[in-house]
């Protein structure tokens, strides 16, 4: 009897737990859903702004061809949720956002403020906060999602792959997820950055040729059938102050932005060597930036100490790395190049956009709280006149697989 009671008690406990775990009864067959891979948010042009939501969905064919294609469907609405409802009404199946990896924000929306968008993404339980956020420059989000794919047939995944490659290999921009962007714009500096994608300029002609077709297919674009369409490319980073888009940094500037904000993992840098009046390329292997803050004679000063390890990729032919004096010269040239460019970028960004995207305010808040509390109210003005110093310490870790000149001219 005791044993039976025990078994019943344990069984009851197990069953009761079911009710405390939400999501256990969300059974759904994979065939009954449409897999959303990317999401685009635009504003309709002219008059009152209405949202234009575009989703890229994986399109499966019931044939021997096992490749996955994608298509884009769009819908308008006064609110984001209304647009979503219209989308669900248009599609034959429920939309599944579990594998949505990219959210593209149109320039119009970004300029008007992304609070609504982020708020919606944060609240809507089907969307993931780990999605990459990108901004579509000089075009709509729909244009990016509808662009031609170079390899991967799903544009959103291609963009996500580009972000990962950019972060880990080429060092143009760091991928920003929804929650990272939320953190950034809620931080003390109230500034955030996201990568920027553009329609490829090389295909401008194609774009014009196809414009008429695009208008017709705006709501239902089959990618595979649009092989001659536009492509897209990573073009730098977008600067958000509070929740609004204020400007862009180009590909070259964004490398220095990553170096200044301690966000560089690996990357490639092309520098000018004044001693030889030539350009050379280095691969950045490691980089760290230390921000220090000091107040002397009532004047605040920020010092950015950048410590970077590089390997030389392209060097002027007359340089022989076997000679130690060349090493010293190159080291100094690269160091000066980085220091100077980082300084210009930081100064320019602060002055032009009033944006502290490098985390300077945060560092001061953390390291010199008293000063921060005293000057918090006037900080926006103080930062514009603050003295900035950049120091770069370069360590050269070899030059590919040889230090020799390959040609003695």
């Amino acid at each position, binding site marked *: 009897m005791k044993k039976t009671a025990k078994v019943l008690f344990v069984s009851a406990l*197990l069953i009761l737990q*079911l009710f405390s*775990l939400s*999501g*256990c009864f*969300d*059974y*759904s*067959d*994979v*065939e009954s859903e449409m*897999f959303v*891979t990317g999401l685009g948010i635009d504003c309709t042009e002219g008059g009152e702004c209405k949202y234009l939501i575009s989703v890229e969905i*994986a399109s*499966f*064919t*019931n044939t021997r061809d*096992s*490749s*996955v294609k994608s298509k884009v469907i769009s819908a308008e609405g006064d609110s984001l949720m209304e647009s979503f409802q219209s989308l669900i009404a248009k599609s034959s199946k429920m939309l*599944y956002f*579990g*594998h949505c*990896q990219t959210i593209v924000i149109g320039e119009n929306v970004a300029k008007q403020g992304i609070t609504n968008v982020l708020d919606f993404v944060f609240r809507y339980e089907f969307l*993931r906060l780990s999605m990459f956020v990108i901004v579509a420059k000089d075009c709509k989000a729909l244009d990016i999602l509808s662009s031609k794919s170079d390899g991967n047939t*799903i544009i959103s*995944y291609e963009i996500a792959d580009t972000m990962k490659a950019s972060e880990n290999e080429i060092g143009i921009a760091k991928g920003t997820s929804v929650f990272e962007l939320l953190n950034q714009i809620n931080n003390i500096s109230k500034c955030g950055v996201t990568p920027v994608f553009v329609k490829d300029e090389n295909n401008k002609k194609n774009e014009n040729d196809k414009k008429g077709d695009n208008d017709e297919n705006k709501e239902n674009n089959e990618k595979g059938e649009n092989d001659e369409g536009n492509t897209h490319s990573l073009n730098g980073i977008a600067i958000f102050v509070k929740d609004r888009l204020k400007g862009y940094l180009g590909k070259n500037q964004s490398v220095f932005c990553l170096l200044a904000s301690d966000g560089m993992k690996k990357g490639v840098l092309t520098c000018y060597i004044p001693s030889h009046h030539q350009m050379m390329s280095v691969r950045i292997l490691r980089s760290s930036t230390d921000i220090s803050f000091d107040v002397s004679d009532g004047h605040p000063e920020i010092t950015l100490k950048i410590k970077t390890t590089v390997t030389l990729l392209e060097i002027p032919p007359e340089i022989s790395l076997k000679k130690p004096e060349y090493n010293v010269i190159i080291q100094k040239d690269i160091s000066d190049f980085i220091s100077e460019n980082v300084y210009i970028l930081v100064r320019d960004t602060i002055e032009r956009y009033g944006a502290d995207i490098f985390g300077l305010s945060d560092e001061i808040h953390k390291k010199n709280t008293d000063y921060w509390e005293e000057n918090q109210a006037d900080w926006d003005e103080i930062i514009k006149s603050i003295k900035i110093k950049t120091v770069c310490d370069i360590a050269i870790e070899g030059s590919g697989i040889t230090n020799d000149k390959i040609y003695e001219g």
Partner: protein
Amino acid sequence: MWKRNNLPNETEPEKKENQGISPSLSENLSKLRILFKDNDSLKIREFRTKGKEPYLCAVVYLEALTDDTALSECIIKGIMNGQPTSPASPADDIYKNFCFEGDLALKDKYDDAVLEIVSGNSVVFVDGASKVLSADTKGWKSRSISEPEGEKSLRGPKEGFTEKLTDNIAMIERRLCTPDLKIKYMKIGRRSATKIAVCYLESLIIPEVLEELYKRLEKIDIDAVLESNYLEAHIADKGYTAFKTIGSTEKPDVVTGRMLEGRIAVLTNGTPEALTAPLIFIESFQASDDYYTHYFASNIGRLLRILCFFLTISIPAIYVALLTFHKQMMPANLTLSIITARQGVPFPVIFECISLLVVFEILRETALRVPSTVAQAFSIVGAIVVGNSAIEAKLVSVSMVIIVSLTSLTGLMIPRLSPAVLVYRTLFIILAGILGLYGYIIGIFIMFTNLLSLKSFGINFLSYMVRPNEYMLQDVYVRLPWQHITKRPGLFTHNITRQKKTK
């Protein structure tokens, strides 16, 4: 020791008191003729000894079970050529002076004599004697010793048990040349009187375990024991579990190895398989090869078997759970590939999974039953043609075929656990199909609760696997090189020193 308990069963023949042997030969023979009425296999050969006052004798035997040469050369010839020396006790006289047969015994009860006859022995009745002589003249063909199909090994002995008990005992005795080896015979089964042998090494076993085994064996009251599994179910600690708590093997070297660790073996006549007790869970993952091959190879094999057990019970359940409840947990590209493969399949994932596993079980069962010449062709037809056609017809998806194949393949690595694997795999799939990964976790809890509650002769089934101990490091998850396995598992014996350290 033959149990002659009466069951309260009306169909059982009425049991009379075991009477003594009548001194009258004709009376004894007529009783036998009545008892064995309509059994043409019974032969009675009457003859007499030499001398002035010869003994009148009759040998009674079952024709099919008797070796004619042994009977005529050792029994009939010996008695017929004998000169009576002690007419007062003719049976004793024949026993001591006439017969050349080594295994000769005197019986003084009628029922014992009958039992000897039905067991295949030849019984000599002597006129005027109240005892009979029973001679072991059994002779019938038996299967030759061959490598067991179910326990093949790359290296090591290839011989396996046969259906003949004495051959099996011989295989053990050849390996353990020590008087410490004890072999006790018993007979179980009211109608079959199946001979079983309990073998152990006296100095290694725990006496309480042996006592418990005898107690359980003596309790068995069954009409026939045709295979050792009849006994297994009776002597196991808990009858209702999918896990076997009594070990079994077809290889004499494995039995010997287990006896050397303090376990007890039970061999059954007519079964080419020995039972060993106690059994712990980790034994299910150990193979004889583990001890004969290099320890690196054996450790990889053993770890693979443990991994395969978890894979075979988990793969389909996790697949079903992920595809129906937790699609977001899979990598995006993998999800898309699986969905592409599933396009056009009309069944839900759980139904597809269970039905394909059932089909596989049908194929396996059929391949087992059909003649071996057909089996190979059948497997190819079943696996390739039917599988491929099912995919072409969009009845099942490619990914599901891969999952089921992987499940089945991993399941074949641990044949000793196949009943448990089948039960828990199905349970997990159903739970995962209803509750997702939460259901799968509940299933895992149920399985481990069951495993933790099991005992084999009072020894916890999961011994050595849970709590770290000295033996665990020597021969549980991995096997050390032989020179480092200095201990026996202390659970089965008080004598734990296996060898002295030499290095």
